[in-house]
């Protein structure tokens, strides 16, 4: 049964007879790929737009309605060697894109205003010391007001809104002092202009907004990029289901189009994308992603199947159930909620700095005012002085200090195959002192591998690999992959539950169960030595070979573990798998602390126990059963192959077969934290120097402009140092 693929769910109708689809594409990394893909797709008739987005690794396609089926594009891309999959932007991503463009608009308006007001301010500053007549100065000030007031009203929105929300909820945040500073600076400048005064602070107010919006935008763009790539990964894993649309008619549909009560087909070698129960068929299923148990379990009518389950031998019909009360998913969801709530108490570095900032600055301004009045200055002068203190201390540098470092470091991590899900993950990762690993799929590769490849003659191996291509069975796929087989043998027959056989040069070849190939003796021999392995036998004429297929540790796991221990980070394993399997992995990696057969709740309990002892835990895991533990840990990481739930929960996601990114990420984050602290100190030192000037009444607009832009530049340059330092590290 060959299923028709149905992706119409993803096609958007743009009106006037044009259809649109977004595809996530794997492997697009350079300009060459970009033009290759665009040329190939544009060459198809009736395609009106084919545009690659190199940042997000996506292709936007538009074509005349009805002229093509989206699968045609995916097949064409596959011919070119790119794996593609329809992609639907999640709501959170769409919202973020919208917010980013709003911030960019604000940045544009603020920068325009700041530059033009500055153009008017420079003549005033120089005029004040030479020969400017008061009428001209007033004219320039009024013009400045004309530009600054609407520009600030528009581009200050991100701060005003958030400050208003905070005040209405009877709390404060960093945006409250910022908004107060901006509004006071503008109001005072207008009043001073009316009274023909020498100084107006329009330029300072706009410059402040410009720097702060730039900080916000940096912060945002970092998260947006990660989310885009993470969204692609989810799409590329091709979460589809084969749904029965008639009695015996099937169609491959995206998960989004499957509902409770539908019946789906789960073929051998397929991973289930839904929760449900088996209504027909018998098979063995591998639930290692959910329970951590690596040995296959028998499944028949009535057996519950969860998303992430791998079907091993026979085809199953599964009735989809809603993930509701009592299912494993809901149990995990409940644990997850609790764990997430427990973690939100973490206070970010920036927030801690902000908490100190507001009362100190406001107190300084108040004292300045009272002090000047006490020394006999007029109320007007005292208030001007106090507002000058507020303006010059407004947190330009503070607003950039952390986002600038985060952006530079997240870019460096990105190039090393680590995606950041949240900005504060960097801070939390930096003070980790214990790493807890899941075994299956985390320390080991997610796919099976042939363990005794060296003992099998190359020619036989190749032949077995070509034969294995005919089978869907995961153990056979492991043989095919290990043999790097490309060309399947012709005329191969599959005998369900036994194996596959065919003929090569008149000799029969068989691949499958040891009994099917008459190799029980050989297989038992291997199983005695390596009870963890699954075996698959191969017969070519009279010669027999048995492949031991097992989970293999990630190629650099031992090195990564050693590197972590060298950094002073303790390593332990928490796995749902059986004892011998975990012991073997732990011994070969030199990990002394390990626990086997633990449930999701046990994992949380262990992490809580460590937390109570003041240990900062990093959890690395990929299974659905790890998700709550990932949420409970101080910081968490998942491989890109992890289940959707784990990936969404983890703070960081690493790509590829290696564990080195985990170690590198810790190095990056430690460096980043150092730079963030430096930047906060730079901002503080700037204030220590600038505030006495303001209190003494020397903070003219010229001094304020120089000090504010100087400190911001310093902080940005310091953040760029992360770039260089990090490169040396990687």
């Amino acid at each position, binding site marked *: 049964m060959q299923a028709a693929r149905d992706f119409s769910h993803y096609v958007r109708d743009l009106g006037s007879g044009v259809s649109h689809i977004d595809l996530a594409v794997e492997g697009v990394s350079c300009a060459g790929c970009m033009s290759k893909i665009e040329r190939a797709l544009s060459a198809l008739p009736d395609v009106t737009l084919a545009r690659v*987005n190199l940042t997000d690794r996506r292709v936007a396609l538009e074509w005349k309605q009805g002229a093509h089926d989206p699968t045609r594009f995916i097949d064409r891309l596959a011919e070119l060697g790119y794996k593609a999959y329809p992609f639907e932007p999640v709501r959170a991503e769409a919202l973020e894109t919208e917010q980013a463009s709003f911030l960019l608009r604000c940045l544009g308006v603020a920068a325009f205003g700041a530059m033009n007001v500055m153009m008017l301010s420079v003549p005033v500053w120089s005029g004040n010391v030479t020969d400017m007549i008061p009428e001209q100065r007033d004219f320039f000030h009024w013009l400045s007001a004309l530009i600054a007031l609407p520009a600030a009203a528009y581009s200050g929105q991100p701060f005003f809104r958030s400050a208003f929300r905070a005040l209405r909820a009877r709390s404060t945040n960093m945006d409250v002092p910022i908004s107060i500073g901006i509004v006071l600076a503008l109001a005072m400048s207008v009043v001073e202009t009316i009274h023909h005064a020498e100084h107006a602070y329009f330029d300072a107010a706009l410059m402040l907004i410009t720097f702060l919006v730039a900080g916000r935008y940096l912060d945002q763009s970092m998260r947006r990029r990660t989310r885009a790539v993470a969204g692609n990964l989810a799409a590329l894993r091709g979460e589809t289901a084969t749904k029965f649309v008639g009695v015996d008619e099937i169609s491959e549909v995206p998960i989004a189009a499957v509902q409770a009560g539908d019946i789906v087909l789960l073929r051998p070698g397929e991973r289930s994308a839904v929760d449900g129960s088996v209504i027909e068929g018998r098979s063995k299923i591998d639930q290692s992603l959910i329970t951590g148990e690596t040995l296959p379990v028998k499944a028949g009518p009535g057996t519950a199947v969860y998303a992430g389950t791998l079907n091993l031998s026979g085809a199953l019909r599964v009735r989809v159930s809603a993930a509701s009360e009592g299912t494993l998913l809901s149990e995990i969801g409940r644990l997850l909620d609790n764990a997430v709530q427990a973690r939100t108490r973490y206070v970010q570095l920036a927030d801690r700095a902000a908490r100190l900032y507001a009362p100190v600055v406001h107190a300084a301004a108040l004292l300045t005012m009272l002090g000047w009045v006490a020394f006999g200055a007029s109320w007007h002068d005292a208030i001007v002085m106090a507002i000058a203190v507020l303006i010059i201390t407004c947190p330009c540098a503070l607003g950039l200090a952390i986002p600038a470092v985060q952006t530079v470091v997240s870019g460096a991590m990105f190039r090393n195959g680590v995606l950041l899900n949240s900005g504060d993950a960097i801070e939390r990762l930096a003070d980790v002192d214990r790493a807890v690993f899941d075994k299956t799929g985390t320390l080991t590769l997610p796919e099976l591998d042939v363990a005794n490849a060296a003992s099998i003659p190359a020619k036989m191996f190749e032949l077995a690999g070509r034969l294995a291509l005919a089978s869907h069975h995961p153990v056979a796929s492991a043989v095919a992959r290990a043999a790097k087989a490309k060309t399947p043998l012709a005329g191969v027959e599959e005998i369900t539950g036994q194996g596959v056989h065919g003929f090569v040069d008149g000799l029969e070849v068989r691949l499958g169960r040891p009994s099917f190939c008459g190799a029980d003796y050989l297989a038992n021999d291997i199983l005695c030595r390596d009870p963890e392995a699954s075996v698959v036998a191969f017969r070519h004429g009279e010669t027999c070979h048995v492949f031991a297929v097992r989970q293999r540790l990630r190629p650099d796991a031992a090195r990564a573990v050693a590197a972590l221990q060298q950094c002073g980070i303790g390593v332990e394993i928490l796995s749902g798998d059986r004892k011998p399997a975990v012991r073997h992995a732990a011994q070969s990696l030199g990990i002394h602390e390990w626990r086997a057969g633990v449930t999701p709740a046990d994992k949380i309990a262990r992490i809580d126990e460590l937390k109570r002892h003041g240990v900062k835990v990093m959890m690395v895991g990929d299974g659905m059963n790890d998700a709550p533990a990932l949420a409970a840990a101080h910081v968490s990481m998942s491989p890109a192959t992890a289940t959707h739930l784990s990936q969404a929960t983890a703070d960081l996601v690493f790509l590829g077969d290696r564990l080195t990114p985990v170690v590198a990420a810790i190095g990056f984050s430690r460096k980043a934290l150092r730079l963030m602290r430096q930047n906060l100190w730079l901002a503080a030192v700037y204030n220590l120097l600038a505030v006495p000037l303001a209190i003494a009444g020397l903070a003219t607009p010229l001094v304020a402009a120089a000090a504010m832009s100087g400190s911001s530049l310093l902080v940005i340059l310091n953040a760029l140092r992360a770039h260089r330092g990090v490169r040396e590290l990687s």
Partner: protein
Amino acid sequence: MEVLVFLVPLALVLGLLGLVGFLWSLRNGQYNDLEGAGWRAIADDDSVQDKPAP
């Protein structure tokens, strides 16, 4: 100094033109793919951009 009456509005209009240009390009999605745009500029063939009308 009378020249300022022309120069200042002129400067403002030019600045405003720049701002409008920026907002227009933002709306047209020109900042959606900065990486790709960089490469497009130095790509050899123009056929990708200018596909002849079918």
